[in-house]
């Protein structure tokens, strides 16, 4: 696309986006009233906004959001690092992959969120079981993507490096590791959103901190706007994590042919 054509395309897109958002807010605010839906089922936007302000001063909303965000970041980073590490190790050793594959498969099939009560029994009502659920849930997509990337490398590429008398370490750092970057980032995007799921499930199961706790608290009080505020904040955390991954991806994969808007 020509630069002029492209900027016009972006301008149109942004305008449409703003109009759509305004329409969404308007229908959220007046839609339920027009349709006769009671506020305890679907509170209007203004009620959610008022609840947000109340929660900031009364329920330490910012603190709880911070705790959840911290858990998401810790779980995401640890889970990705472990997943990538295992992906590379298994990718380089077909024997290890063969031996470990039944266990990996079993762990992958097991619903990771079901581990939350177990981890709480082990570690109590702290942030650690939640981080651990996030680690477990982020681990698999990252590991599988890295493993597949290493396996999928053109053998001729490896032979080229070998013909230049490359050592095993050189083959890894000059060919295999850079080759895995695009699939690694694809899995990190998935991981960023899954980390939020893991942390919230951990918080829902038990404890007295984090947005998951506020969520159950609001539910217990039949405070629908409170539940909405929690969901919005969780979405915000997930969105920022996803955006952070995309910004990092653009820096690392700068050599890739440009995609419009970075494939958001």
């Amino acid at each position, binding site marked *: 696309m020509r630069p002029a054509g492209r900027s016009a395309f972006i301008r149109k897109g942004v305008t449409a986006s703003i109009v759509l958002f305004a329409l969404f807010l308007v229908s959220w605010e007046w839609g339920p009233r027009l349709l006769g839906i009671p506020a305890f089922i679907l509170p209007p936007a203004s009620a959610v906004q008022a609840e947000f302000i109340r929660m900031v001063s009364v329920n330490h909303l910012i603190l709880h959001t911070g705790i959840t965000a911290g858990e998401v970041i810790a779980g995401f980073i640890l889970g990705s690092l472990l997943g990538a590490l295992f992906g590379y190790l298994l990718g380089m050793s077909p024997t290890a992959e063969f031996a470990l594959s039944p266990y990996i498969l079993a762990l992958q099939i097991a619903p990771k969120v079901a581990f939350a009560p177990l981890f709480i029994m082990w570690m109590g009502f702290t942030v650690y079981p939640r981080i651990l659920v996030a680690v477990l849930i982020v681990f698999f997509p990252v590991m599988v993507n890295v493993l597949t990337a290493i396996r999928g490398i053109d053998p001729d*590429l490896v032979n080229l*490096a070998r013909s*230049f008398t490359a050592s095993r370490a050189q083959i890894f750092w*000059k060919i295999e590791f*850079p080759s895995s970057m695009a699939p690694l980032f694809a899995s990190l995007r998935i991981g960023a959103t899954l980390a939020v799921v893991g942390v919230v499930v951990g918080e829902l199961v038990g404890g007295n901190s984090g947005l998951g706790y506020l969520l159950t608290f609001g539910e217990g009080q039949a405070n629908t706007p409170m539940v909405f505020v929690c969901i919005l904040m969780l979405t915000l955390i997930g969105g920022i994590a996803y955006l952070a991954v995309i910004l990092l991806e653009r820096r690392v*994969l700068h050599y*890739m042919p440009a995609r419009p808007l970075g494939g958001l």
Partner: protein
Amino acid sequence: MIRLAFRNVTMRFPGASRGADFTAIDDVTFSIADGEVVALIGPSGCGKSTLLNIGAGLYPPSAGEAFVDGERVAGPNRHVAFMLQKDLLLPWRTIAQNVALGVEIQGRPRAECTRRALELLRGFNLADFSAHYPHQLSGGMRQRVALARTLAVDPSVLLLDEPFSAVDAQTRISLQHELAQTLKSARKTALLITHDLLEAIILSDRVLVMSARPGRIVDEIPIEIGYRDDPLRRRQDARIAGYMARLMEQLEIARPVTLAQAALQPT
């Protein structure tokens, strides 16, 4: 002086079931002298690429030995460098960094790697593209970069496996010309694998013909046209037709029915 030699090289691969091993190449012996360019031609699947992999030291032969510069090939070594049909450029490296890959792996200082890469790119008229990434270049340019990368390690023998078969016909003609000029001026020895009869004749001093599997050398044709550094001129030489006829005869291209019958017979 003999640069590259194969002595009674045989390569067998394990088949799908026990005892079903098949022989890809069978008792191949030939040698290439210093500065000579030899083309190897044969039907697809006759083990041409296997021979190249053995020469590069990537795989050991089942029997026999390969020698480069008088040394027995026991693994990848600095005497040979290969180039394939695929350019194998790394998308995350700039053109200059791609050319420098080999020298970098061999542990030369970074400044020397860069200098060597830029020097070669200038020679191929690609200096302006040194900071570009591979996806920004055309197929023909990418293949020239691959050739520059092969030459960067200054090998005594170049192993070229159908290097131009993936580019369009016109680009191929100019690439062939550049290769011929480069091989002549750098006084390099090369083994060129190709399925293009004309390419084999216009680029080489000698053409070796391989049979269908198991691959054996069935004919050796010295090309006595001269001016090997000018394939454009060679293309127009009247003697080309005679060489073509002999190659077609050897490869049984003129008798497709016989080939089809042979394929139907149980082996």
